[in-house]
């Protein structure tokens, strides 16, 4: 390598600092650019623009519904995967994680191929009277599909990291597995579960491609904030920027509140 052992300047720490500086500049510059030249008053004005509040309200509603589904189904599923071993478990885990690496366009096409009226189970979905394409329910499906692996992955890691002696003690004292799950496992895994929730929430709030392809784009029904931003991008760049700023603020608020409630280890420690 270029630095010979005889050189006494501490080159390695310098490399680390430079790398962090590059990363920090690269990651924050575009976000800062959104806020440059815009006063908070202008941002609030932009929210008054037709459709902007509708989009925000829809995004929050759809994300909340999707998170409810993810937590309700994802938590027990992750618990099972973290505490049992069975044949083919690694295949199951891989399948559950697969949407993590799918491009949004693939997710959109896949959802259409499966659930649209001409999709492989579209007839059955229609049969029970559920419309997904062009409906808010379709947005929730798209968000859930792309965001749930983020939660399940974190939840699995969090459950697996809980000290087994805690669970064993609870069982020895006569608690049923369901009771131990609720009283011991969930509280012990809470920082990891919160981190997973925050990641899934962030992913759901920012979802774009799958929503557009699967659910469409209609104000108040399927046009979430990212779709509204895209819709304004060409016709009204300032409005698009303002709406982007709102999304940044909301996302940052979520990130910060998770860190405040569960300590900074909630998100930092989640990587294990």
């Amino acid at each position, binding site marked *: 390598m270029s630095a010979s052992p005889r050189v006494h300047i501490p080159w390695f720490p310098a490399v680390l600092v430079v790398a962090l500086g590059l990363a920090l500049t690269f990651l924050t510059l575009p976000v800062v650019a959104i806020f440059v030249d815009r006063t908070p008053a202008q941002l609030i004005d932009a929210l008054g623009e037709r459709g902007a509040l509708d989009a925000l309200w829809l995004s929050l509603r759809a994300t909340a519904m999707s998170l409810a589904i993810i937590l309700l189904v994802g938590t027990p599923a992750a618990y099972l995967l973290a505490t049992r071993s069975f044949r083919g478990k690694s295949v199951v885990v891989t399948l559950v994680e697969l949407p993590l690496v799918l*491009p949004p366009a693939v997710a959109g096409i896949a959802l259409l191929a499966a659930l649209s009226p*001409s999709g492989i189970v579209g007839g059955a979905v229609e049969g029970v009277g559920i419309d997904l394409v062009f409906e808010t329910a379709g947005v929730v499906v798209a968000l859930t599909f792309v965001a749930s692996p983020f939660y399940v992955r974190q939840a699995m890691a969090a459950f697996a990291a809980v000290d087994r002696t805690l669970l064993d003690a609870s069982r020895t004292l006569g608690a049923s597995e369901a009771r131990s799950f609720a009283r011991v496992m969930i509280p012990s895994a809470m920082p990891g579960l919160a981190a997973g929730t925050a990641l899934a929430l962030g992913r759901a709030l920012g979802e774009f491609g799958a929503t557009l392809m699967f659910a469409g784009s209609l104000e108040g029904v399927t046009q979430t904030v990212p779709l509204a931003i895209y819709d304004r991008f060409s016709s009204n760049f300032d409005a698009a920027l303002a709406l982007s700023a709102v999304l940044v603020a909301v996302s940052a608020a979520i990130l910060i509140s998770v860190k405040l409630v569960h300590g900074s280890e909630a998100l930092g420690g989640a990587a294990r």
Partner: protein
Amino acid sequence: MRCVVLVLAAVALASPGCGDDEGEASSGDGPPLVVSAASSMTEALEACSPAFEDAAVRLQFAGSDELAAQIRQGAKPDVYAAANTDLPEELHREGLLSRPVEFATNELVLAVPKDSEIDALDDLTRADVKVVMGSESVPIGAYTRKTLAKLPRDEEEAILANVRSNEPDVKGIVGKLSQGAADAGFVYVTDVKAADRALEAVELPVDLQPTVTYGVGVVDGAEHPGEARMFARQLVDGPCADALEEAGFGPAQK
């Protein structure tokens, strides 16, 4: 230092690829010529551009409005070919584009899935029909709204009430139709032709049809203005004009 070189190399490697709804293709010899063109010309221009001898044409397709917004934000393709004349005229007035030239026309039609029972505009007023159209900011959406505005007020409102999605480009409309998710959508006749028999076109009454004229210009500050002018010229008369005609476009009114 090495890090910087690495980062630059990574950026250089990544730069030819672009956003998720843009297609690109390059061809021919000579200097690279970047052509930003409306999505509706995808098939025709991909077919004719390899024959352009004066430059290696790199095609970028997206909604005309999106391409215009990129140019306003400082992007410098050589040629800008839009699905209307308003956007090139606006860019020309802003000093970003040469005086635009009209090179083709298209026809707005009602597209329906094959074997659909819908065969007239009136059918769209029924309460259970799912209609998709272009968003107001894209030319296809603007033309559609202009056409609907010529209908009696109650008919226009009934159709607009059936709109289930305002798509950011024609591909979104065609996709929803061919998946059977929507019953009818407003697209160009060339899109129906390109959809390869999955869709059928219902022609609109002549008095409702908007004039859909395509305009092209050379971007101010283009790297290869000479080649760009030649490319624009053969859109009016030359291999690409023929390919456009083949795809169902009409010639520009002289």
